[in-house]
């Protein structure tokens, strides 16, 4: 069932490529169907997942037996959570790119290549397979941004592609070294994650290989100071691609760091714990402060992504069950909320006003011209600030609780980051939608009535994402019942011993 999330995406790519170029409507329909089918498959699997630490095996086929490489797909609660957020982001992304008119089928073909790769990463339990899917996701991002993007798109696209590739190069070095060391130690050549998780790697090996793999993945999760691809990439990307970048691609990085680096090398995490927490907190506070002074609406959201992903990394570094669960929850929550914010900025506002300059938007009185956009953005901001009732609250609170046990100072600093977050969100909210002061009077509203109204696909997409955030915020056990048992699985035996739970 779950494997179909991957296959359906690639089948969708095949169908899209066969469609005639003159029929964008058909391409959109195929895209929406593909995305919905993926989401449905993910939801079914999540509903049937027993609340136990056992892996839900999907497929195991020998691929390259001589090298110990298998085609091994499986899922635990953590993968399922991320499969769900991928499904949500994919559906919403299609809805918000309903207005793509140039080379529509190519757009969706690249889009679903990316989605298929992302599903693949979340379901792979063989490190070679995981890496294959991870790299598969790099190239479509480049084209999505370079062809359909805006502001400095070729620069942003190339920067993103190179950062991702450098990150995966670090990971590749680490994986090869891990493979060879495990083979020397046990005599068995394998890339199978459950098998490698049983190997106790020598301490001095873990000390250098852990940062290699962790940082390699975390580059894509926006780890400060390697985050600079994120704002430029997000800004340059078309709406759906920014939603995917923030919504799922950054999670690829965080997921990889958790699934590979932390699972296999807990001793390495012990050594580097404080450094990672420091970088994460710097990311949280720095991202928020920089967002506070941006002039471009989308840059504000871009930097806020860096800030919120800091919470994921902080949670990962805590060695605490609550903190780790919070990190996974935050991956879901940020995927939904950032998607929503980018949808408002990119699709609802920019595609209509053709500007993202806050000073220009101030004069447009968008609060009245686009009431739906304004309401959506208010809700999204509240969710992003971490208001109780939304998913962000549960997630960031759990991370802070975990962090409090491990490093109280970092928790306090992260709290400061949250406060600054409220600041920049209120500032853009006021400037973009509710500025009625002297500016609005001075700059005559340039035909506010001429802005086309919000379309049905946009409304549906927004409602879907808000609904998801509210559902998790009001009843977090929906996901926590998936995530929490997963920590008891044999995969994390070494981590549990190291952490002492």
């Amino acid at each position: 069932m779950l494997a179909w999330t991957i296959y359906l995406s690639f089948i969708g790519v095949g169908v899209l490529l066969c469609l005639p170029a003159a029929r964008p409507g058909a391409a959109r329909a195929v895209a929406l169907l593909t995305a919905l089918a993926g989401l449905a498959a993910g939801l079914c699997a999540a509903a049937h997942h027993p609340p136990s630490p056992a892996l839900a095996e999907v497929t195991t086929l020998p691929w390259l037996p001589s090298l110990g490489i298998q085609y091994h797909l499986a899922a635990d609660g953590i993968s399922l959570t991320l499969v769900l957020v991928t499904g949500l982001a994919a559906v919403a992304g299609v809805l918000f790119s309903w207005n793509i008119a140039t080379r529509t089928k190519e757009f969706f073909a690249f889009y679903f290549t990316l989605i298929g790769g992302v599903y693949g990463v979340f379901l792979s339990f063989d490190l070679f397979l995981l890496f294959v899917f991870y790299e598969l996701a790099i190239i479509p991002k480049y084209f999505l941004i370079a062809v359909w993007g805006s502001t400095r798109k070729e620069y942003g696209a190339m920067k993103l592609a190179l950062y991702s590739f450098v990150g995966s190069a670090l990971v590749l070095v680490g994986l090869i070294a891990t493979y060879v060391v495990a083979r020397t130690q046990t005599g068995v050549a394998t890339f199978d994650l459950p098998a490698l998780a049983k190997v106790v790697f020598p301490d001095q090996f873990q000390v250098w290989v852990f940062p290699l793999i962790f940082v390699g993945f975390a580059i894509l999760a926006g780890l400060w100071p390697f985050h600079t691809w994120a704002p430029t990439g997000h800004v340059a990307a078309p709406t759906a691609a920014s939603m995917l970048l923030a919504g799922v691609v950054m999670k690829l990085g965080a997921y990889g760091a958790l699934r590979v680096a932390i699972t296999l090398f807990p001793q390495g995490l012990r050594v580097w714990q404080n450094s990672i927490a420091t970088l994460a907190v710097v990311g949280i506070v720095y991202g928020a402060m920089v967002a506070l002074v941006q002039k471009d609406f989308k840059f504000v959201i871009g930097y806020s992504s860096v800030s919120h992903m800091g919470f994921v990394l902080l949670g990962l570094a805590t060695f605490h069950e609550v903190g780790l669960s919070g990190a996974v929850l935050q991956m879901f929550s940020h995927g939904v909320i950032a998607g929503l914010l980018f949808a408002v900025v990119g699709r609802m506002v920019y595609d209509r006003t053709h500007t993202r300059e806050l000073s220009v938007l101030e004069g447009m009185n968008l609060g009245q011209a686009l009431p739906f956009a304004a309401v959506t953005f208010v809700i999204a901001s509240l969710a992003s600030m971490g208001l109780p009732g939304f998913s962000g609250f549960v997630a960031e609170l759990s991370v802070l609780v975990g962090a409090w046990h491990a490093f109280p100072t970092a928790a306090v600093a992260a709290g400061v980051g949250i406060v600054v977050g409220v600041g920049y969100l209120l500032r853009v909210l006021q400037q973009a939608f509710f500025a009625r002061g002297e500016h609005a009077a001075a700059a005559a509203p340039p035909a506010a009535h001429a802005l086309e109204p919000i379309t049905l696909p946009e409304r549906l997409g927004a409602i879907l994402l808000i609904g998801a955030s509210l559902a998790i915020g009001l009843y977090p056990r929906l996901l926590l019942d998936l995530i929490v048992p997963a920590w008891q699985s044999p995969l994390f035996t070494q981590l549990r011993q190291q952490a002492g739970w």
Partner: protein
Amino acid sequence: MSSVDYLHLLALIVPETLVVLAALAILVVDLGVMRQAPRRYRCLISAAIVTVACFAAMLWMHGVPQHAYALEGALVVDPLTQFMKQVLLVLVFATAVLSLDAPFTEHVGEYFALLLFATVGMMFLVSSEELLMIFVALELTSLSLYILTAFNHRNPASAEAGLKYYLFGGMAAAFTLFGLSLLYGLTGETNLARIAARLQGHGLDPLLALALVLTVIGFGFKIAAVPFHLWAPDAYQGAPTPAAALIASGSKVASFFVFAKVMMLGFAGSEGSGAWARLTPGWVPVLVILAVASMLLGNLGAIAQSSVKRLLAYSAIAHAGYMLLGLITMAHTGQRQAGMAALVYYVATYGLTTVGAFGVVAAINPAADDERLADLAGLSRRAPLLALCMMVFMLSLAGIPPLAGFFGKFYLFTAAVGAEPDHLGLLWLVIFAIAMSAVSLYYYLQVLKQIYVSPAPEAAPALRPSLASRLALGALALAVVVLGAAPQLLLDPLAAAIQRVL
């Protein structure tokens, strides 16, 4: 020395004989019968003869597996050399199909005959473990390729490229010959295995070191490794595109294979070590220097190119650097089989990819001698299939899964790290290689950016490449995808062949 059984010898060289006969047939048919026919038919007939010869030779090797060590190693026929010959024949076949549209010459028969003569040279090259035979085969290949490079008499750049290639090549041949003669003087033998036996316990004295370095210079030229690469960008750019494809693929495959054999068999015992902080003299550190320099200069040089063929030339230099890692791995006895398998997989898939990439360049504009990067602008809208093929080739060269280039790199790097599993001594070299392949993504993406992102020029018409080249390119792209996703298709027969030989 017993008398030579010529019939037995003839049976061993049936594939080579077939290719030579085909070359002669082409000359006879083209010069004798088809002189007045339109060029299109002459090309078709010649290519058909090439096809028949290639497939007949492959079928023969497939159907009649032989294992022989004849004439003191001058002719080694075993599963591995037969495997290499099949790879070469596939590459030559692809080159011939892509030459169909090329309007660069009136001398069709001579062109295809030279193509086959170069092939024969390469086939003898891979099946020899004897210095004289290696040298003769190397020269046969090189001389044919020099002429092919200069074959476009309408383009002065082609003549210049041919001359440059020839002068550098002649110099390199002199170095090789000097090195080989020193080796002979030291040991009194020309057979690789016996040379190694004589050198056993000899230590790395200055004369041997000199012979070693001179030999490496000669082969370094053939594989276009830095600092012996200077001919490559000019030759690739000036040569007719299909000829450049053969130089970059077939010639490289054969040279790497024989280079590996000479080093591994002939200089066995004086390997030295290239491990980090434990460098000891021998041929491995020499190759390490070449590898590092090639990866660095090839990748950085490619960034600055604006001609597609020059870019491919620098990329070829960089790839030579990666491939040298395979040779370095083979110096470790425990990893010899893995190193050989990784090297052969890498060069074979690299050959397919490169022929494909040159084929796309040739198909876009058969009349042009040189393709600027900007000429590719908007190709995805002018010829979607060509664009898709080029994407596959470029991404494979960059090492993106699930394409063959990725698995080749992965396998090569894993074998290299596994060569010293206790200290991970070669890890530094692998880290460097992986870092450099991250650099390479930049310029491969530049090509794809032109194809997919840049708008097509206003006046540009839709492209309709010929059916043959579309089929050939499609098949090559498919092969790159399939061999990447299911590498065991190539690896299993390769491993079986290697197991019986090494």
